[in-house]
């Protein structure tokens, strides 16, 4: 009753309402900023890990490429040489050792295993050849080589295992001999070593090319992540500053309201 003359006008009520709305908007924008920050952190982490990944793939591809190229060169020289059997054996042994180390090193990396976990590879079915036994292999014209699709990572671990098995055979039977193509080809330990190293080198070339592809796909991901980060950061800044602007607008409404109240008659409280 006694405040009849000091009642807030409709404009002043609108100011109160707007101050409230702006406060709510400030809160909403603050929450959006928090969510952007979360996303930004996630993308930054992804950017860092993908950049490292790309760099790792490139280094690995370069390593595999250099090794394969050296294996090819050494192989070419050994085949064209009249080196003694022992020297040839030693050279093939060192290549085989380096190849197994290289494959193990590459596939020890969890990111490589993850990258190629769903990949398959088409390769010679050597198990089938082995199952034929020495007599089955010594068939005129040689046995038919069939191809099989293998799980990518398992296939490379098999290459390593096959190389280890071969060195065991050679150590247990250094004078191992066999015949192929109805006795036309005499197989000795050097022949076996050479076939295995060539086989490994062939699939190291495949690995090299796949690692290059992996680095290229990482590059695309980095570009996408980078664009996302840029867009998030720019949106975040806008949201942050908009939040501040709404806070200021709310304050402005309250100040105008205060000023209007001051302009009201002094007879509010007597």
């Amino acid at each position, binding site marked *: 009753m006694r405040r009849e003359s000091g009642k807030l006008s409709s404009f002043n009520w609108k100011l109160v309402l707007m101050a409230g709305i702006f406060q709510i908007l400030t809160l909403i924008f603050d929450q959006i900023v928090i969510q952007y920050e979360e996303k930004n952190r996630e993308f930054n982490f992804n950017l860092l890990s993908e950049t490292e990944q790309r760099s790792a793939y*490139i280094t690995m591809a*370069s390593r595999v490429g250099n090794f394969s*190229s050296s294996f*090819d*060169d050494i192989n*070419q*020289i050994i*085949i*064209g*040489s*009249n*080196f003694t059997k022992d020297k040839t054996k030693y050279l093939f042994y060192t290549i085989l050792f380096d190849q197994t180390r290289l494959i193990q090193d590459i596939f020890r990396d969890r990111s490589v295993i993850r990258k190629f976990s769903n990949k398959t590879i088409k390769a010679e079915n050597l198990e089938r050849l082995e199952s034929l036994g020495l007599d089955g292999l010594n068939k005129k*014209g*040689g046995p038919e080589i069939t191809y099989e699709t293998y799980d990518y990572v398992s296939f490379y671990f098999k290459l390593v295992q096959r190389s280890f098995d071969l060195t065991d055979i050679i150590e247990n039977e250094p004078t191992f001999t066999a015949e*192929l*193509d109805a006795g*036309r*080809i*005499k197989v000795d330990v050097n*022949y076996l070593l*050479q076939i295995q190293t060539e086989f490994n080198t062939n699939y190291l070339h495949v690995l090299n*090319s796949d690692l*290059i592809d992996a680095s290229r796909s990482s*590059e695309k991901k*980095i*570009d996408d992540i*980078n*664009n996302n*980060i*840029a867009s998030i*950061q*720019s949106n975040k*800044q*806008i949201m942050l*500053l*908009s939040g*501040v*602007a709404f806070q*200021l*607008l709310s*304050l*402005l409404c309250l*100040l*105008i309201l*205060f*000023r209007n109240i*001051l*302009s009201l008659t*002094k007879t*509010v*409280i007597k």
Partner: protein
Amino acid sequence: MLKSLLIKNILLSTFTNNKKLRFISTLAIYLVIAALFASATSIYFEYKLSKYKNELLKLELKEFKIQEWLTDSTELGHHLKKGKFNFIIIEGNPNLDIKKNTFYFNLLLNYPLVIDLAIDDIENINNQYLSNKFKINKIKNENKNINNFLDLKLDQYSEDIASKMMTNLEYKNKEDELLSSVPFKKIKEMLDQSEYNLLQINLFFQEYNNIVDKKKDDLKKLIVETTKNSTDAIFYAFFLQLFIFSIVQIFELKELS
């Protein structure tokens, strides 16, 4: 009771100092408006800065790739020279029977794939001036021809060795025989061509590196300049508001008097 008395006292003192408070509230309103202007200015400049920073980051990533190609093309060129040098040592050695064609053919095998990858990256860069300057399309066609030649020979080789089992010597002789029909001059020319193309690719990336460095410098300058402009704009906006406030106050005081 005490609370209501306190509020009453505050309100009474408020209304007795009405003029002073009016001035303070008007000043506060103008300061808030100035802050709003500063926020709007910051939004505009922050958007610009974020765009520049993103560009700068993209250029940094490009720099990685450039450095990788500069290293790879130089290493591969070095590998080629080393290969040629190795053959000089091998040639005439009675312990080594390696045919010149076979050796150079195997050496040539290293290049087309790498050149193809470099051309892919160059095409993604899409710099017409540099592409024309270093004749990238010509390099692409030449590399394609070399690749076709290698594929043809490798296919013939694969067909022959797949037809029957061979001893090491048979493998080697088959390879030598297949390549002996190709004039050495042709393989040598392809190898020299690959070496030249690799050098052109290296020069492309060297020059592109300069362009990227310049762009990075320009962007850095632009970022500093934009930051300075943003600060200046906020400062001027504040003073403009203060000026408007003073004028309004003068008129208000005049009206009151």
